[in-house]
């Protein structure tokens, strides 16, 4: 599989043409939205929050954060950081609500301590492992990124970074850098071993308990696939229930059943039930 970061630095790869192509692809919109939902459920923010989006691109995740209904703890305010001015340009065209910063996450995160309730990064962190000049190293860039991220989150805050590690070694390097910055860390892998495998690095800043979200706390990094485990157990555990994304189709179906049992009239389920709102352009 060809990896774009092997060929060009991110600000050149995501030029105007690529930024538009990326953002208007319905396949990409769909996948990025699913992953944002997954990240949000792992962040478990109870009420409208201030969120940092690292490598926010054209704001696909941000659109979702801004339109998250109150019943799911939203809408959130967000600040996006990205190294590609073309991607940010598309975000402007899309009229996103978040504030946008042109910046390199490998240079650090320029916010005062305790700024954010939570942070997310979708499909961006693998880019930090590539270095463009002899003055810097991947390890140095990751260290500055995670140190900055750690400092700008509130105590008890979480960060979820979905990324595409090249291999096991790179996955461990990224997770290890987060742990060295002080995070409690766990790795969650969805659909492991399939074409659509997704890796989520779940991080917490002191005080935040992420047992039950992912195992492998306090410096140890472990891998597991919760969803498969839950399936193997054959019934919905308390943990999975807690994990069910509010507003997701499964969640709505469960609510509907509950309401029906109470004798309330509910709208018949259609194929549109619980569908993600389409992203408007």
């Amino acid at each position, binding site marked *: 599989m060809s990896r774009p970061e092997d060929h060009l630095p991110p600000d050149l790869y995501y030029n105007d043409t690529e930024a538009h192509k990326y953002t208007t692809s319905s396949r990409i919109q769909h996948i990025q939205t699913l992953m944002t939902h997954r990240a949000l459920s792992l962040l478990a923010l109870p*009420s409208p929050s*201030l969120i940092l989006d690292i490598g926010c691109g054209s704001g696909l995740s941000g659109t979702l954060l801004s339109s998250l209904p109150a*019943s799911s703890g939203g809408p959130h*305010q967000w600040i996006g950081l990205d190294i590609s001015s073309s991607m940010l340009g598309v975000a*402007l065209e899309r009229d996103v609500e978040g504030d*946008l910063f042109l910046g*390199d996450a490998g240079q650090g995160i320029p916010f005062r301590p305790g700024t954010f309730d939570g942070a997310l990064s979708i499909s961006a962190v693998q880019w930090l492992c590539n270095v463009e000049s002899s003055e810097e190293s991947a390890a140095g860039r990751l260290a500055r990124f995670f140190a900055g991220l750690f400092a700008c989150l*509130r105590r008890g805050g979480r960060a979820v970074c979905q990324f595409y590690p090249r291999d096991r070694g790179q996955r461990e390097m990224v997770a290890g850098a987060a742990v060295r910055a002080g995070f409690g860390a766990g790795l969650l892998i969805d659909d492991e071993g399939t074409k659509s495998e997704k890796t989520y690095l779940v991080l917490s800043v002191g005080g935040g308990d992420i047992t039950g979200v992912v195992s492998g706390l306090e410096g140890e990094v472990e891998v597991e696939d919760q969803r498969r485990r839950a399936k193997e157990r054959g019934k919905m555990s308390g943990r999975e229930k807690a994990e069910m994304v509010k507003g997701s189709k499964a969640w709505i179906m469960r609510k509907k059943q509950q309401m029906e049992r109470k004798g309330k009239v509910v709208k018949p389920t259609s194929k549109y039930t619980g569908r993600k709102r389409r992203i408007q352009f």
Partner: protein
Amino acid sequence: MKLLTLNFVTCARKSCKTLPAAFPLHPRDAELEIVEMELNPKFLVNILPRVEWQALRTVCQELGLPTLPDIMPVQQDLLQPPSLPGRESESQEGEAEGEGGSEEEDALQKPSQTAQDLHRVLLETTIANGKLVCGACGHEYAVKEGIANFLLPSHMV
């Protein structure tokens, strides 16, 4: 860039991180724009204790905006006092998706004047173009169409 964001951003240079003068960044040649958005009382309640009030006052003064009170409002100031007449009759009935409807939740639906003013300053007042200057190192960060450029040349990281 919202004034809310300006209340949290610092100079990106490592050598400035610990210097008090590196926050807040000072707007220069700023072109302001009001971008209206829906008031979210719960967000205001959440963010208020994290706002650096004196920094916000300084920035407002530098931008020529009306002077903010000396003392930062507290979370209670964001909620309409419950004794206010007319409150009962105004409450929406038949809201199917009502959320519990606790006292606090109810009050949150009626933002006070303070909440509206804060919303205006923090979330609707934006810097569309201009510069942000670090008080410690003097570095200028350009803001164009609301996007702040925080890329540093490698010798400055």
